Structure formats: structure tokens, C-alpha cells
């Protein structure tokens, strides 16, 4: 079901958690709410789920204002970061809970419940664990039980609060691919909260980047990564080098290593580490003189940390071949050159 969020505002005392948010989520979409902690992403999710009330604005699910519907009748599947499983119940009973608490006239029969639970266990690939208690499962298994439990009530929308936040890196990667495949299979409108940009870009159809209770950008992973709307989005979606430059006739000029003088109109340039190159000689006017401070060659690329004479750090990612070609060592004096950059004018300075 489609979700429509109109002019949503939420305050906790003096703190404004969300201010005037508007967002449309299409039927069957998988959307990530991405942002640092305190950006309001979890609050937004909890308001959509009815666990929290907004001061102003409305949430419309499937054409009806969800704010007037009690949480019990919303049919929202909510998956909590720390699973929130009922630990005195077996996996089977946990998943069956949502069906068993229905009013008698809507409650499915015993066999029907059993069949539904086993179908869900099959869906989350935990068929053999039905009689176990949550305490006997691994973190990844618990999270899948929590998901099956949320799906049991046949929700209109599925909401996941940092679903992989408490898991270790390997399990996390496996589980998010699995979630993506699961979503393609069941096509349920889903919103998940994460502070991990990699997770958002890999799993979601669309990413909503949030900061300070506002939406910075909404777009496909390709959009937000390659066409960031604000410096914040650019910086949040990957490692970033920031250079100060000046504007000449509206186009940016990076003056290598020198701080711009007061009178000039300044601009900031954002460059990803893998879009930087290192040379032994000054290649262009934009090259910045720097010294190699640290080299990490373990991995698919070589990460080199440079320091400019002004004491600013520059991160550069080189291919292994290029690294060997350059024969870099700690202390080598080099020039760093941006190959491609993102310009933000002065009034965009958010960071």
C-alpha cells in the first residue's frame, strides 16, 4: 500500500525531531531512511508505525489517514532493532502471536495458524527451529523470526528499525541481500531505517537521506550517490575530501594548497578518495602539494593518507598497479590532483 506523509512535525520538548516532512512512498517500494543518529529517521518510522504521535501533519496509508487508527488496527509489521521477541515463547508461538490475539470472529483456526506459521518459517528459512526458544538462536536467526512474526499479520506495510544494526558484519551482508530477495518475492511496501550508507544503497529502491529532522534528498541509490543535492548528502554517502577554492566568472578554480583570501567568492569542492590521483610532479594548477603520512595497502585498493602544508588531511584511494608505479613511502613529497569533483557554492555550506 502506498504511504503519503504530509507536512509532518514532531517535537520532544524543545527539540524538534521532525520539521515539516513530506514524502511519498509508492506501493511495493522498498525505501531506506538514511541519516546519522539524531536525524529523526527512527522517529519518522515510529510515527508511520503508530508508535509515536506527530504534533502536526498526517500519515496516509492506502488512502486513509493512519493517525486516527489505533496501532492495533493499523496492520503494520514492525521489526525492532533488538528483535523484541517474546523470550518465554517458542519461535512457533512468537510467529503465531499476531494471529492468536485476533478477536474470535477474525481468528483463523488452529490448523490454519499452524499452516501459516510453517509457511512463514519456510519463507525465512528457519523451518527446523519452530520449537526453539529465542535464547537458543543466533542474532541473524532471531531477526528473521522477528520478520516472520511481523509478516504473520499480513501487514499493509513493513517497517524495519535498523534491522541489521545489532549483527556482525558478515551476517549483516548476507541478511540484507536476503531481505532484498525477499522483498522482490513478496512485494510488500517496506521502509527501513539505517545509518549505514552501504546498506541503504545496496538494498533500497529509493533512499531518503535525512539530517536534523529534515529530508536532504530523496532518490534512487544512483541518484543520491552520483547526483547529491547537498554537501551533506555527498559527505554522508562516502569518504570525502573537501577543498577550498574560489569562483571566477561562476566557475570554480581550485588553488592548490592556498587558503582563499577574504575578498574572493569562495566555493567548496568535494572529491571522493578514489577520484584523486597522486603525482610526483605538479600536473595542473589544481594540484595540491602534500606529504604521505600513512599507507594502507591491504585490500582491493591502496588507501593513502596525505597531509598538506596547512595541516589538512587528504585521503586518496589508488589501484594497486598505480601504487606500485608511484613507489610511494611514508614521508614522500607528492602532489594530489582531483580528477573529478563536486562543487557546492557558499550558500550550500551545511557541514
Amino acid at each position, binding site marked *: 500500500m502506498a504511504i503519503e506523509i504530509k507536512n509532518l512535525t514532531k517535537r520532544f520538548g524543545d527539540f524538534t525531531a521532525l520539521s515539516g516532512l513530506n514524502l511519498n512512498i509508492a506501493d511495493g517500494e522498498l525505501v531506506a531512511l538514511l541519516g546519522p543518529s539524531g536525524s529523526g529517521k527512527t522517529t519518522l518510522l515510529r510515527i508511520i508505525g503508530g508508535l509515536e504521535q506527530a504534533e502536526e501533519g498526517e500519515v496516509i496509508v492506502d488512502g486513509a489517514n493512519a493517525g486516527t487508527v489505533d496501532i492495533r488496527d493499523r496492520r503494520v509489521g514492525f521489526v525492532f532493532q533488538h528483535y523484541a*521477541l517474546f523470550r518465554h515463547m517458542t519461535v512457533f508461538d512468537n510467529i503465531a502471536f499476531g494471529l492468536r490475539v485476533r478477536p474470535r470472529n477474525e481468528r483463523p483456526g488452529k490448523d490454519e495458524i499452524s499452516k501459516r506459521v510453517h509457511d512463514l518459517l519456510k519463507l525465512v528459512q528457519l523451518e527446523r527451529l519452530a520449537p526453539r526458544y529465542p535464547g537458543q538462536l543466533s542474532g541473524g536467526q532471531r531477526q528473521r523470526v522477528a520478520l516472520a512474526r511481523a509478516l504473520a499479520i499480513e501487514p499493509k506495510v513493513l517497517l524495519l528499525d535498523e534491522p541489521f544494526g545489532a549483527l556482525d558484519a558478515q551476517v549483516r551482508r548476507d541478511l540484507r541481500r536476503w531481505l532484498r530477495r525477499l522483498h522482490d518475492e513478496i512485494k510488500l511496501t517496506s521502509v527501513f531505517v539505517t545509518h549505514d550508507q552501504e546498506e541503504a544503497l545496496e538494498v533500497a529502491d529509493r533512499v531518503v537521506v535525512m539530517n536534523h529532522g529534515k529530508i536532504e534528498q530523496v532518490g534512487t541509490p544512483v541518484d543520491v550517490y552520483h547526483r547529491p543535492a547537498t554537501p551533506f548528502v555527498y559527505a554522508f554517502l562516502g569518504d570525502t575530501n573537501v577543498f577550498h577554492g574560489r569562483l571566477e566568472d561562476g566557475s570554480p578554480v581550485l588553488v592548490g594548497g592556498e587558503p582563499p583570501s577574504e575578498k574572493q567568492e569562495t566555493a567548496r569542492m568535494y572529491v571522493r578518495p578514489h577520484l584523486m590521483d597522486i603525482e610526483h610532479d605538479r600536473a595542473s594548477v589544481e594540484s595540491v602539494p602534500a606529504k604521505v603520512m600513512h599507507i594502507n595497502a591491504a585490500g582491493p585498493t591502496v588507501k593513502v593518507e596525505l597531509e598538506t602544508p596547512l595541516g589538512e588531511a587528504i585521503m586518496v584511494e589508488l589501484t594497486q598497479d598505480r601504487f606500485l608505479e608511484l613507489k610511494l613511502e611514508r614521508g614522500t613529497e607528492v602532489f594530489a590532483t582531483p580528477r573529478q569533483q563536486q562543487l557546492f557554492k557558499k550558500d550550500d555550506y551545511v557541514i
Partner: protein
Amino acid sequence: MHPTAYAVGLTMARKHKSVLPGFGLSLGFTLFYLSLAVLLPMAALALKAASVSLDDIGRTLGSERVQAALWLSLRTAFIAGVINVVFGLLVAWVLERYNFPGRRLLDAFVDLPFALPTAVAGIALTALYSPNGWLGSIAGIAGIKVVYTELGIIVALTFIGLPFVVRTVQPVLQDLDAEIEEAAASLGATPYQTFRYIILPHVTPALITGFTLAFARALGEYGSVVFISGNLPGKTEIAPLAIMTKLEQYDYNGAVVIAALLLVVSLIILFIINGLQAWGRKRKLA
């Protein structure tokens, strides 16, 4: 000695040692202390009981007065325990779930029955519930007599048992995330269903432990009860008082028999508590 050999010898010796020093000494002291303070008096009682003739046992336990006292103690301790389970859970819930001015003060009040000398509690309760006391006069209007009745004993035992239930349930409630209740609500459970199927099963092991502790304490409670009960033989005479009466009559064997019986009941309760705690642990989230 060769330096390497010495080093090897050192590692071997260290291998079995724990990082914490003094295990041998502290274990020795613990055993000694427990024996002296706990096991020795019990053993003395058991030995003394073993030397009592079957006749004496039969005579003591056969006496209607003793039977009435034992039965009264079990019954009142049980009822007081049940009352404490209900209201102790309520108190623990309010103290854990809500924030209000004076919460910490109220929390401290819960320990009052622990801290108060039992005789003081007994006198206070008797004064309060006597026919011309504050509460006793109100109860009198309703035609209820508290002091010198079984009801009075139950009141006293409820008073001293409350902290046991509150203090065992509180940490368990604290342990129960608000998320769990939100999860239940989002799955469509009514507040009653959430309480009945989620919260209650979660706190049940703690409630049973609290009940058992309160029950065991109430079974042996003496100081706070003797004033309010009036000690009418066969009517409001509790088991610990029956022991006192036997001693005053120089019937040591009779006293030992009743004491041994109470000891056995206490031990059974202790085993039940331990069993319940093991059961509760097994179901805990790792």
C-alpha cells in the same frame, strides 16, 4: 637449573591458577563460616530431633493444639503470600513503569518492613487495628474484627512479606523492554492480552520466587504476629509460638519436634526456590 627448564616449570605451575588470588583461603573460610553459622545449628536440631522417641513425636503431632497451630501458620502464610503477589506486582509495576515525584521515596518505603524491628511492627499494627485504633474503628463499623483474629495474623504477615515480592519482581520488570510491549501492540494485542500473554509469563518465575520467600518468612514470623494475634490456643496460636509454649512448659522434645517439622518445610521451600530459579534461567534470553 637450566633457565628454560625454570621457565617451563613456572608456566606449568601458573597454568592451574586463576587470575583472582586466594581461592583456597576464601573457599576454606566460606565453608567454615557457613558451617558455623548455618549448618551447625541445623545439625544440632536434627540430632536432637533424632533422639526424640516416637512416642513424643506422636504425642506432639497428635495434639490438636499443635495441629491447629501448624495448620494456622501454613494457611495464614499462604494467604498473605497470595495477597503480596497481587499487590507486590502492582507496586513493582508502578515503581518501575512510571515516573512521578516521590517515586524514589516510595521505593525506599518498600524496604521498611525489612528494616523495622518486627516487635515494633507488631505493636504499631495492633494499635492501628485495635477496636479503637484508626483502621480498627472503621473495620468495626463494618462489623469486621481484626485484632486477635486470623485476619490480624494475615495483616501482619502481609506487612512483613511485601518487600520480598516487590524486590524480586522489580529487576525482572526492568529487564522487560518497552519494545516488547510495542511489538505486542503492533501485532494487534489489546493491553489486556499484552499483560496476560507477555508480561505475566515473563514475571511469573519471579513472582513465584517472591511468593515462596514471603511464605517461608511468614511461616517463621514471630515478633510482629504475637501482639496482634492474641495467641488464643487452638485459635490464633501460630507454630513458632507453639514452640515457645512448649519450651516454657519444659517440653523440650515437643518443641524440637515442631521445630524440626518447620525446618523440613523450610528446606522443601528452599529446594522449590532453587528449582524455580534454574527453570527461569533456562528460559532466559542468552
